[in-house]
Each structure stands twice: as C-alpha cells, then as structure tokens.
C-alpha cells in the first residue's frame, strides 16, 4: 500500500467513515457511483472493484461486460453535506479492463491521454470554467420550468431563496477545497453563475462533476431543482460553460507575450487558430444535446460564428483583457454546462495542440458585431458558422480525424451512434410549435 492509500485508509478509520462512494463518469458525462464499506476499501485501492459495465452509457462492449473501478486516492474527499453521524467520502475512479489495461470508455483516461500529449510537448493545460445554471421550482416536464426568482444580471436581491442556496453551495464547495472565484446572479430569471479558479484540466474535470452534484444536492434540500439544461427557457439566455484556457511551460504562462499587440505569444495564436479551425468538428462534444443548439443562436451572448476578438462577446474565442501578464488566457465560449467535461477539455486541447504542431496561422480579429452582418458579408470575410443543430454537429464530427484520434475509436463510434439515435428521436417528434402554428392553419 502506498502513502496515498494509507492516508485514505487511516482517514476513513479516524473519521469513522461509514461509506465510501466510488465515483466515475459515463461517456455522456453523467455521474455514476456505487458505495463500498470501509472493509472493502483496502482491497478496492489495491486491486479495484469489479462491476458490470453493460448498463452504463458508452461502457458496453460485445465480448466483455465486466470492468474494474480503481480509486484514485488523490481525489479522496469527505462529502460535507452528509450528517456527522454517518460520514461519507467519495473518491474518483479510473476504469480498467480486467486485464489491467485502461478501459477505452473511461473519460478520465481519454483526457489523461490528451494531457500526456501536451505534457510531452512541454505544456500543462489549465482550465477555469464558468458554470451557468438555473434554479427551478421542480423538474416536472409536463409544464414549462418555473423560475424561483425574478432577478437579473448582478442584481442585489434581498434574501431570496436562490441567493441563499447559491451562497450555501459556494460554502460547501470551499469546504471541499474548490475555490470559487466569483458567484453571481446571471442575466435570466433564476439563472446563476459560479466561476471556478483555474486548475490543471484533469482536476478541473473532476471538479466540474463535483460542482454539478453539489449545486443539485444543496438545492434539492430546499425542494429546488438545479438545471444545467443548455436552454431551458425560450427568449432568455441559455447556460454556457465559458472556459478560460491557458498553457504553461514550467512556471511561465506559454500564452503571454508582453511585446505583442494582443499580449499573446505565437503559441497562444497557433492554439487559437487550431481551436477555430477545428471548432465545428468538436462542437458535438462540447455541445452534445439537441437542446444545446437552441442556445447557440443569435442574440443571447452565445457564439454562432467561428471568430475571435478581444472584447466582443459574440465571438467564439475571446481574449480577455488582463491586468497581469501571468493571467493571459483565452476564453472558449461554445461549451455548455451539460457537456462531459473530460471529453470537452480533451477535444478543446487536442484542437489547440494541433494548431501548435502544424503552425496554423491565426485569422484576423473579428472587428464588428458579427450578429449584425449579413450572410453575404460573413461569407465574404470567410467567417464560418458553428453547427446549427446536433445533426450538423455529428456530421462534422464524423468526418474529423482529430476527434476520432482524441476520443479513441470506442468512444468516438459509440458517441456518434448515440447522438444519431437522439437526433432520430427528436426528428420524429411533433412539437408544440408545430401544433400551434400548423394545426389551425393547414
């Protein structure tokens, strides 16, 4: 037993922990867990726990359904919302095949593989997402979602329930060692945002999983439903996961160059060029639901066109103005909070790395508000659009060698099949829109 394992075992004993939840993530980013008792923990740490993966999205294979969950002791953490008399801890797991090789369907492996590639090139990938979400009265799909407050952007509201819940969630996150940079009321009614401080991308993907769970858990105790649905309400902003990205090389920020007009190094520019060129291919991963594409429309501060700019919030890649050059970073504005963070970070990084490896040229900054340009003007400037639907996104993805390579054949193939099925179900659905509009008329 190594140090870390010993630390975990001893803590379990000292804190009288009754259950340890083994956490892992399916291919669509849904958190999965099973609990073990402290008695089983030592064995789990040493050998892993076998379970049947056939019922888990993206885990099923033809020949073998059993897989092995191996806890990553570095992620061991008490869950502060469990009562003191029955303390419960969680630990993230990596999934392995029974022969000990990494399981191809495990998103943590996928991300780690891409991070290793960056590492070999001397880079460390840092991510800091902004998590937007809604609080609703319930999750009942038979009626439209009911907001629980009517505040808007940066509103200082007096002791309303949603602010209380958000505050408690932030405190819980801090207790779990997840520093929150900033928490605020967002633009739409009942919409909130929590900005996280940057960490390395693997830790951050784990953190996003934790944050989503904490936000749901804390709200549910007040009978409130937290929703990460990308666009739950028509006519107001959707929930994105704008992600701030930087690469570091040793101790220095590889994106910064104080002598450059934009403060950006050649590495940063090539990374951006890679991200922009491959953006349409990776969108199915960063925006994986039918509903995701209801957010990516004109007029709600969500990106629609493939462009970059310093302060234009309609652009896909934004370069924030920084006070200190060490904070130089870019912001990728496409992802939504309902993505699988492991896979999303992996494809974003892979696209950027490709730009660095191939020395892509960064196109000029988009000067004006692209939303006011006509399709002809956009075409004349060579500005492409992001996929307009899940179907378009899957078509783009299917053609992408970059995505296939990054996700691995197993995940790539399963993901496309799953998303085709989702699109198929959506396509045959007759919506309220159609009934309202066509039934009286046609």
């Amino acid at each position, binding site marked *: 037993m190594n140090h870390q394992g010993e630390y*975990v075992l001893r803590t379990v004993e000292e804190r009288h922990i009754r259950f340890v939840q083994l956490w892992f993530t399916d291919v669509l980013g849904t958190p999965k867990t099973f609990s073990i008792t402290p008695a089983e923990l030592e064995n789990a740490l040493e050998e892993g726990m076998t379970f049947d993966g056939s019922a888990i999205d993206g885990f099923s294979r033809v020949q073998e359904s059993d897989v092995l969950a191996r806890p990553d*002791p570095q992620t061991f953490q008490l869950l502060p919302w469990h009562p003191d008399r029955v303390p419960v801890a969680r630990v993230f797991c990596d999934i392995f095949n029974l022969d000990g090789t990494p399981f191809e369907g495990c998103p943590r492996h996928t991300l780690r593989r891409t991070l290793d590639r960056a590492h070999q090139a001397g880079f460390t990938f840092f991510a800091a997402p902004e998590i937007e979400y809604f609080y609703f009265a319930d999750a009942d799909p038979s009626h439209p979602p009911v907001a629980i407050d009517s505040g808007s952007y940066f509103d200082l509201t007096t002791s309303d329930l949603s602010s209380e819940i958000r505050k408690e969630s932030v405190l819980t996150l801090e207790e779990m*060692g997840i520093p929150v940079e900033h928490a605020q009321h967002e633009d739409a009614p009942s919409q909130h945002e929590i900005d996280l*401080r940057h960490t*390395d991308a693997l830790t951050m993907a784990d953190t996003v999983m934790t944050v989503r769970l904490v936000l749901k858990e804390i709200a549910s105790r007040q009978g409130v439903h937290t929703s990460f649905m990308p666009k739950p309400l028509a006519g107001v902003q959707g929930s994105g996961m704008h992600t701030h990205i930087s690469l570091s*090389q*040793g101790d220095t920020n590889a994106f910064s160059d104080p002598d450059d007009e934009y403060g950006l190094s050649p590495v940063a520019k090539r990374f951006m060029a890679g991200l922009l060129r491959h953006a349409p291919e990776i969108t199915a991963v960063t925006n994986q639901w039918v509903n995701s594409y209801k957010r990516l429309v004109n007029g709600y501060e969500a990106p629609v066109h493939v462009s970059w700019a310093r302060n234009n919030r309609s652009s896909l890649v934004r370069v924030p103005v920084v006070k200190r050059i060490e904070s130089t970073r870019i912001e990728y504005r496409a992802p939504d909070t309902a993505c699988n963070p492991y896979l999303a970070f992996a494809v974003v990084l892979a696209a950027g790395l490709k730009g660095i490896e191939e020395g892509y040229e960064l196109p000029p900054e988009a000067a004006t508000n692209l939303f006011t340009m006509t399709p002809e003007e956009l075409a004349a400037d060579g500005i492409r659009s992001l996929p307009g639907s899940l179907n378009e996104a899957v078509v783009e993805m299917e053609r992408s060698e970059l995505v296939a390579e990054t996700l691995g054949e197993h995940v790539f193939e399963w993901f496309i099949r799953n998303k085709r099925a989702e699109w198929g179900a959506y396509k045959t659905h007759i919506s309220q829109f159609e009934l309202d509009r066509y039934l009286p008329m046609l």
Partner: protein
Amino acid sequence: MGEREEEMEPLLCFPAPVSDDLTQVLERAGYPWKAVSRPEHAETDEPEDGWSGAVISADGDAQGAFALCRLLRTREVPLRPLLLLIAPNQIPELQLREDHFDDFCVLPVRPEEVAARLAHLFWHTGRGLRPELIEHGPLVLNLETYQAAVAGRVLDLTYMEYELLRFLAARPGKVFTRETLLSRVWGYEYYGGARTVDVHVRRLRAKLGEEHAHLIETVRSVGYRFGQGNWAP
C-alpha cells in the same frame, strides 16, 4: 513511510567538541547532530531546512553561549527547542534570559535527564524523532493519524493538500519556491507543473477558511511561507 524519518535535520550543539556524556545521549536517542565551535558557525553551517533544535552548553564560553541563545531566539522564526546546559553557579545568569531557552539542565548532566528533557521538548514542538503533532497557532497536524484541525475544526484534506500543509507547517517561517515545493512534496512529474502548487495552496486556504487562510503566506515573486514572520508558534 520512509520519507518522514529522513526529514529530521541535525540538532545544533555548541560548543564543539561535545562532551562524551552528551554524545552518548544524542547517539543513543538517535538524534542527528552537528557541533560548531564558534557561535557564528550556527548560521554558516545551518542545513537547508534549518536546525531541528539546539543543545547549548554555557559551561565553557558562557558569553558566547548566551549570545548564541539570544541570536537563535531573536531570529524571525525563533529556533525551538533550545536546551541550555549550565554549571550550578550559572543559575542566577538565567534571570531575564527566560525567553532565550526552552529548558535547562545543570551540569554535570545525567544522560537520562537530558534525553528525557529533549524528548519532552520535541514532543511539544512536534518536530524531531517522534513528530506526532505539529502545532502552530490554531493549526494542529497529527502525523500519526493524518488528521489536521484548525481552531478545533477538523479539516477534510485530500492527500496532496495534507502533504503540502505538513511540509510547510513543519518548517514555519521558511520561504519555499514553487519548484522546491513541487520536488519536495510531489517529488515526481505531475500534470500541473509548478502552478499545481498555487492550485493546492488555494485549495488549502479555502479549507482553512477565511480566518486562517493567512497561515500560508504568498511571498511575492518567490513562493510561499507558512506562518507570519516574527510570529512564534
């Protein structure tokens, strides 16, 4: 757990050569030690992580010995523990020097007494051969059980957070660069690179809570330091 035992730095002994009795005590109890013949060598011969404590005899060069005690105790982070050995006629000299040592023995020493006093002193400071506890202001680390508490509140730390806090808290007042911390605490290539240290410090501060977050200080453009300067544990 081999790494912890290696971590004890030598005790400072003054003056050199050390008496046979004292040598025997130190060797038998297994304390690493190093004797210096002149007070100023306490600075120049100091190991990278600082002395783990001092045993200073005032029997020979009394002036030098008391000066050295004062020097060690008026540092930004006073050296602890400090055991003073004095001749019976030097007892009055201790007056108004109470803060310059932690305990004293009257010569000739009885080896068992020196061993017992050292063990007692080390138990208090949490350093040394049996570092069961590290205490620093409101922070307590129990190295046996891997548990940490601040102001009586148990902290739920991840393994690396715990290791980083332990490393820093065992060396209060000393400034470490990110690279040093990375190589000493992580000890291997890690996804985060040197900025991982920043990330873990932030996480630790979040868990320590606003009130105690200052226990880990950022030293601008250098690195981090545990505990405030001039603030004795």
